[in-house]
């Protein structure tokens, strides 16, 4: 079944065409890695799918429904979840609370005030499980700002997974992390994706990582999709490699 379908989606900022006629289809359980040089439009792609921005033209279909104009909150309710390129966590809360707040929201307890948190044993248990899944149990009671950047990125991703998404979009989950930790993070994320079988779009800047872990790969350049296919196909294509290597990486 088709989970997501973009039909000729366009988005411009002034003269810059961030998304230029983008059409993509994702079937259930599919994991796509999106790669491309800086400014290719990768983040904008996630922005229009998540409702952070609305496209100028084109349509976005989700589970057969036109969601092009739906506000973010409604999309989250339908299981469309994203993380942000820069770490986006709740900075005065502990690791545990960061994930718990997300679990509570998914369970529709976000406005409940008649009982204290202690009494929501189901949510507490799920939070523990998610912490375990991401190997964050030892840091549960630490303030989120006092753990390593790599672990904060993992918490960020875990917050998204705590919502039990049907479609998850991760914007460069390994960016800003030391090279040696990148594999560790990506492996953990892919492990969780495998277990939950969630349809995923992962933006990744690092070509090595993409070729190592990717299955289906979308290459973007100047707002356009210049390749969409199996990892082997992309790896062999010298033209695409040139674009990726020639792009401004920062």
């Amino acid at each position, binding site marked *: 079944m088709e989970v997501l379908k973009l039909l000729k989606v366009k988005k411009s900022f002034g003269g810059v065409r961030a998304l230029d006629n983008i059409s993509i289809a994702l079937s259930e359980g599919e994991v796509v890695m999106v790669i491309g040089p800086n400014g290719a439009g990768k983040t904008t792609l996630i922005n229009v799918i998540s409702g952070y921005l609305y496209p100028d033209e084109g349509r976005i279909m989700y589970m057969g429904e036109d969601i092009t104009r739906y506000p973010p909150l409604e999309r989250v309710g339908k299981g469309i*979840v994203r993380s*942000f390129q820069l770490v986006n966590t709740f900075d005065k809360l502990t690791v545990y609370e960061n994930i718990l707040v997300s679990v509570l929201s998914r369970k529709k307890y976000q406005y409940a005030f008649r009982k204290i948190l202690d009494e929501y044993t189901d949510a507490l248990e799920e939070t523990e499980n998610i912490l375990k899944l991401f190997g964050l149990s030892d840091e549960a009671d630490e303030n989120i700002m006092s753990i390593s950047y790599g672990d904060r990125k993992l918490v960020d991703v875990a917050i998204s997974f705590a*919502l039990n998404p049907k479609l998850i979009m991760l914007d460069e989950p390994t960016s800003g992390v030391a090279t040696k930790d990148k594999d560790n993070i990506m492996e953990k994320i892919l492990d969780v994706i495998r277990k939950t079988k969630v349809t995923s779009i992962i933006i990744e800047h690092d070509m090595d990582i993409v070729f190592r872990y990717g299955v289906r790969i979308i290459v973007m350049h100047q707002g356009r999709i210049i390749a969409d296919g199996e990892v082997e196909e992309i790896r062999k294509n010298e033209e695409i490699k040139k674009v990726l290597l020639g792009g401004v990486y920062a």
Partner: protein
Amino acid sequence: MVERLKRFFGDDIKTNFIFLTIIAILYPIIYVFSPGWGVVLGHGVTWISALLGFNLLFGYTGLLSFGHALFLGVGAYTVGFMYKYLGINNIELHLLGGILSSTVVALIIGPIVVRYTRIFFAIFMLAIAQILWSLYYKFYWVTGGTDGIKIPRFSILGISLEKLDFATYHHVYFYFVTGLTFILVYIMWRIINSPFGLTLKSIRDNETRARFIGVDIYRARLYAFIISAIYASITGVLAVNHHRLVTPDIAYWTTSGKVVFATLLGGARIFIGPIVGSFVFHIIESFAMKFIYWQMVMGILIIAIVILMPGGIAHLARTLVDVVVSHRRRGG
């Protein structure tokens, strides 16, 4: 979960109850030595509700209101009108009236103001509060203008306090308000430690992310705003019953300033902060009033304290407790 918080001094409900109990025990002793200081404690306990309400928005939701006098005014004039036009001097009805009218006012302005944050929210609240103040001030045929509305001693459950001597009356007032404050503190503590409380903190820390985990931030802020308004109006109701006079002063911006400063003084990041802040503020105020330019003295004192103790008194106390505890651990 809350267990995890409890190790912190001041966020535990027990610390709060113990603190209030100590004050309740000290009250008659202090009163015997100096009724004046007894009255100061009476002010202290009266203002806790407003400070807790303010801090639900400030410390937990990240919205700084410069206009909480608005809701104290609503509570106060509800009492004034209830007495002036309906002859009601029953404090339970005053409280009920204050809660209802502040809820209505919060429902009218809340949906608009919660769309703003930071300085915009602060100024918006200040402006609305000043508009209401000017109405109390100008419509003197309704409100009595600056002369205000005089009210008699309240009655509790129909029992009149008119015939009591001064000291007994003060004690009845103090213990009634303290009893009520125990309940208000407990309810607020439960709210802050509920899922909703955690949601508010998530909005405070990161509005965008909160939205993308499925929180309707305006809705959550509106709920917090209403609760905050009710708590502030309760102090309005109590304060005018304490003074037995309703004047526009309670709705003036200086009242909003007092709420802000007293909360900062006590500490906005710790639950007990506003409770401690209320007492300390009134104690400092009563010292400062001995000077001619007491408002200036007060201002300088408060600025000095806020600069020297950025986390407030509660934070300082927690730091000291932490030092002592870790020292003992190392020693033993």
